[in-house]
């Protein structure tokens, strides 16, 4: 197992190289450049050239890439062209927010999705099954943007139960430690902040988690249906085990392998889905950062964000593969 993990971690290197080369090429091929963006409509060509030279944008593309790569190997992702801030700081200040949102969304998706899937599978072709699967279909086809606005209108404006957007009520004093705000409010024993932070998390998590929830529900259902038809389930029932133990202890565990795959893949997708959710809910995360960076053609920042996304994706995949061995002891990587 140890060697497997080391091997997988080493595989990250070519993946990251590939991703950054593609991203680097694409963003530079795209029309427009940061100098023009910075200076706006009122700038002269001379000023644009000066800025381009200052940031090395007048160099050939491969030279720019190797300069960037050299810096990255020294742990330096450069400074954002637009904000002058170090790219590492720009990302580090948003990354915990996106991770918290993604985890909350995933928890919501798994909890509701798995339960719905089980109900649907055990009560196949019942009204419950049809309504759960109907809702799942609705969930998959729902635009995040629209769902977000609807949730805000209902729970934020009309009922007034939950906040509309942002990360915390700005009137509550808050002390930042790790940047993970749920964690920080617990560490600093700040109850008001914890409640505010959690309540700000609810609507975005539902908006972001709805699509994976629907996918998980459908996967759980089909996987469960397949398992429930197998011989060992019939044997267990024949042995006189209660239906609850048959379903939750034996069938569910066996049905979980495809579900874990779906969860793993969707966690990566959540990061990209987060871009829309973050915009609607004014969530200060990496998704919005990268979109704005692309608009501004802020090359160092764009590439830095893509690097982080790629890393997260690869690591989540690795964790998924490791999880298989715990769910199904027959799986070995040696």
């Amino acid at each position, binding site marked *: 197992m140890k060697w497997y993990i080391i091997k997988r971690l080493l595989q990250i290197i070519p993946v990251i190289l590939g991703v950054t080369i593609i991203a680097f090429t694409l963003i530079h091929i795209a029309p427009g450049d940061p100098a023009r963006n910075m200076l706006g409509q009122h700038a002269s060509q*001379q000023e644009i050239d000066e800025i381009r030279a200052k940031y090395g944008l007048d160099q050939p593309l491969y030279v720019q890439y190797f300069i960037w790569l050299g810096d990255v190997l020294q742990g330096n992702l450069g400074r954002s062209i637009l904000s002058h801030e170090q790219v590492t700081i720009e990302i580090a200040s948003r990354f915990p927010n996106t991770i918290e949102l993604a985890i909350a969304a995933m928890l919501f998706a798994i909890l509701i999705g798995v339960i719905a899937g089980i109900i649907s599978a055990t009560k196949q072709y019942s009204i419950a099954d049809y309504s759960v699967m109907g809702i799942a279909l609705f969930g998959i086809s729902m635009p995040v943007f629209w769902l*977000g606005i609807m949730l805000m209108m209902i729970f934020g404006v009309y009922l007034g139960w939950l906040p509309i957007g942002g990360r915390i009520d700005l009137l509550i004093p808050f002390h930042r430690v790790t940047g993970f705000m749920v964690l920080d409010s*617990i560490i600093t024993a700040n109850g008001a902040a914890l409640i505010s932070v959690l309540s700000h998390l609810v609507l975005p998590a539902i908006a972001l988690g709805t699509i994976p929830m629907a996918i998980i529900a459908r996967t759980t259902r089909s996987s469960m249906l397949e398992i429930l038809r197998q011989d060992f389930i019939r044997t267990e029932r024949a042995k006189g085990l209660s239906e609850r133990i048959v379903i939750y202890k034996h069938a569910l565990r066996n049905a979980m392998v495809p579900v874990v795959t779906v969860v793993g893949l969707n966690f990566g997708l959540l990061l990209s889905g987060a871009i829309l959710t973050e915009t609607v809910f004014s969530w200060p995360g990496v998704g919005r950062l990268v979109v704005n960076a692309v608009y501004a053609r802020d090359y160092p920042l764009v590439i830095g964000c893509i690097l982080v996304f790629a890393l997260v994706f690869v690591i989540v995949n690795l964790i998924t593969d490791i999880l298989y061995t715990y769910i199904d002891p027959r799986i070995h990587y040696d």
Partner: protein
Amino acid sequence: MRRDNIINKKAVVAIIFCVMLIVISFSGCVQEESKEKVLIFASAGDVDKLDPADVTDGESVERMDNIFEGLVEYKPGGTEIQPCLATSWVTSSDGKNITFTLRQGVKFHDGTDFNADAVVFSFERQYNTSHPYFQYGEWIYWGLFYSDISSVEKIDNYTVNIRLDKVNAEMMTNLAMFTVTIVSPTNAEIWKEDAFKHPVGTGPFKFVEWVKDDHITLEANKEYWRGAPKLDKLIFRVIEDPSARLLALQATEIQGMEFPDPASFNSIKADSNLQLLTAPGMNVGYLAINCGYGYNDNNSNGVHDTDEPWVETPGYFEPFTNKSVRQAINYAINKTSIIENLYKGTAIVAKNGMPPFMLGYNDDIVDYPYNPDKARELLTEAGYPNGFNTTLWVMPVSRPYMFDPVKIGEAIQSYLEDVNIHIQFYQVEWATYLEKTEAGEHPMCLLGWTGDNGDPNNFMQLYGANGCNIGGALNVAFYNSTDVQDLLDAALQTYDTNERADLYEEAQEIIHEDAPYLYLAHANQNLVFTKNVQGFVLNPTARYFFYPVDLT
């Protein structure tokens, strides 16, 4: 097997119980109702930097206008100049020296005294390449607006002299811009290249914290020289989506917001808890008709010199060199209908190339009325009785002055079709669009201008012959009238506002007659506040000053 189960269940129950206990115990310490006057204002984006001399984006300026102050400022609600950190100023007889007397007893938020050294520091770092702080910024606006300043010198502790290379009547309005607001030199020394994260000025609010993409908190400067502001705290939140901004306002999570979606104007007006503030904006949207000739600015001085001949622009199109054809286009298009139906009440009809509240706006000009018959007549006179085919370049992005470029383009297309001018569309990505139109590749294009400093020259420079340089044109109609350019030059040579106004009014008459542009619209600026927000004044420069604002 069964024992495991029981343990698991117990563990789950214990965890749930603990979490509930924590939440319940925490909920006891929910904060007391705040008695502070806090105003939360939502803007559409986060700031780039908090160094006034090193930004060009509106969001940064919104925040910093409440932290920093300049030598002079605009009168509230206008573009006239009044004293601020300078109490008075004298212009030398040759017009090349402006000497400012500084306000005494003012302190920066960090306790540093405001004096001539601070003024010299704030200016010099932007133009003196050997200044130790020059390396920390791009100083983009210096080249655009202050390049006529040759030096800024301290005369004594409270007197500063600004020396100009040449007379520039626009300079006083330029000095009211955010770029030359005064920063604390002590603070700059402490933070060096990171000073943009720690803004320290003399203004009514002090910087507290900046959480990126989320909010910036300012607190009242109780020692402010005009007296403490009425608000205790001013928080700028970032809410990018206009619907989400309005929902946050309706839920009173925020008290004010910018850029409401015009589709929601009716529901805002119907909401008794909200107020919609509207004022004319400093901008113009237009259809530029390429008159055909530009020059290559070989020495990059931005001036059409005698050794730089007029050459055909790449988008040269014979009919547009004819004044009657351009006038016909002005007659053929029903602007009022476009403004009413496509701008959705967010703009007023334009008849001149600068907004109506500005110095030198010529209100005597009678706009071309909508008259397709007259247009056909003019086209026949010009030798095009059967019309012609041409291309209209349509902006790929919308701006307040060009609310919905494609729909506006389509409207223009159908109006021109009516007089036998057949239009094809051309669209390209925005940066390329700007580059190509500045190079004169278009026969006709939609574009516009948002004012920078509140000075008429900022708009009128678009219409002079000097603006026709191929590759960097401000004058995208390539309207190369030297008569207009002479008037514009003369207007920059005098500090007498009446004389300047006369010169600009005369220039507008010539432009109107030659019709190189079809001026479409001046977009309004709109802000929404909750009803309890009092005293906010909209400025034509779209700058937000929260000093006089109170919550009732």
